[in-house]
């Protein structure tokens, strides 16, 4: 009995140590997710202005650019998958990977070859373990991406998109990221990144106004050439920011439930330990009483 009491206490100690860690991680994730959401919020004006400019261009000039022209036949597509670098995020990474796998199956059913572009150590390890080929990988910034990271990824994607098929270029680029709906729901999503779908802005300018004639400097084509890569970068930047915020929110939730479970476990273990201690005391008393009565019987004889 004594050994089991010690074991119970040891387990309780180890569970409380784990709980301290998960509690700390929960708090860290909670403070980081606020920052990540603020960063995502701050990036909005840039995206908004860019969207406005692109739709102005689409409305006032004929949009005909390699990045917006769909290929006649899609033979090879790139799949950009954004996951986290580390675990302890609940189902965040595996949900993104599952969505990516569904996307890949769908593309392959249409006879499209899929090349993988991976962001985050989780997907890299996943693919390496299964010996799945990866075209390009990026890692080390999943919870705090910078614009420079988005810049690098977008430029690599654009370069492969513009390459002809025969030289290993791709006809389409899809991205899987996790959208931050709220602190409670984060949904993995698959979106087509390239070729871009440019929506002419009929709603952007108020319906009551006459759309003004735009002047382009130096000319619409050059402006478009400059704008399109910026637009792609801003999309990738948006995906990275959303994914980072989702990752942290998911981590906070996972760590919260881990802490709750640990608390419950500690409670049960404490009860069991108390019971074991009580049983030990009862047994000792029984033994003493038994011993005493045996002595009394012996001396009475």
């Amino acid at each position, binding site marked *: 009995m004594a050994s089991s009491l010690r074991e119970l206490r040891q387990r309780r100690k180890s569970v409380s140590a784990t709980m301290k860690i998960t509690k700390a991680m929960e708090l860290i994730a909670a403070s980081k997710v606020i920052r990540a959401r603020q960063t995502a919020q701050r990036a909005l004006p840039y995206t908004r202005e860019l969207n406005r400019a692109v739709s102005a261009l689409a409305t006032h000039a004929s949009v005909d650019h390699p990045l917006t022209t769909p290929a006649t036949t899609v033979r090879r597509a790139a799949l950009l998958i954004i996951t986290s670098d580390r675990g302890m995020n609940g189902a965040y990474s595996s949900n993104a990977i599952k969505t990516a796998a569904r996307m890949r199956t769908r593309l392959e059913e249409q006879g499209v070859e899929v090349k993988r572009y991976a962001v985050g150590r989780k997907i890299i390890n996943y693919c390496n373990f299964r010996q799945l080929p990866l075209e390009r990988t990026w890692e080390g910034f999943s919870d705090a991406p910078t614009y420079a990271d988005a810049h690098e990824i977008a430029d690599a994607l654009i370069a492969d998109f513009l390459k002809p098929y025969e030289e290993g270029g791709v006809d389409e680029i899809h991205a899987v990221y996790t959208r931050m709906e709220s602190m409670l729901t984060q949904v993995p999503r698959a979106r087509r990144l390239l070729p871009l779908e440019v929506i002419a802005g009929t709603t952007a300018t108020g319906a009551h106004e006459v759309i*003004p004639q*735009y002047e382009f400097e130096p000319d619409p084509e050059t402006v478009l050439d400059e704008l399109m890569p910026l637009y792609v970068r801003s999309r990738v930047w948006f995906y990275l920011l959303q994914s980072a915020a989702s990752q942290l929110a998911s981590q906070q939730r996972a760590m919260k439930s881990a802490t709750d479970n640990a608390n419950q476990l500690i409670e049960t273990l404490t009860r069991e330990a108390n019971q074991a201690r009580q049983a030990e005391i009862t047994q000792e008393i029984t033994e003493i009483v038994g011993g005493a009565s045996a002595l009394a019987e012996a001396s009475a004889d």
Partner: protein
Amino acid sequence: MAFDSSPLHVEVVSADGLIWQGDALSVVARTMEGDIGIMANHEPLLAILVPSAAEVLSTEGTREVVAVDGGFLSVADNRVSLLSSYARLAHEISLPEAERELAAAQKALEGGDASTETMQHVHRASAQVRAAKRAAEKH
């Protein structure tokens, strides 16, 4: 369309967020075709910027110098937006630091590394040095 003397509403936006916003009398920026000045009721315009220092003269009489590394300028309905991925306000740039960065970038360029990244780095650093100098000389 407003034809009164309402001031320009200017927004300077970088990828990391809104850098500066406010009402302004004029905006001077360098596009691919040369310097351009924007005042109220300017015709709608979309222009590509080159790495340079852009100036915004606010209605309060202050002058804001912004280092831009490219990007574009859009004008519509008395709203001006300067959009540049790595835009920075000149008075937030430390000149020695920017000069050091420029020297490092140029060294990399002279060392035979002519990648687009290095070129962008050089442009960005030189725009920041220019902006910091401009902000320093007139104040």
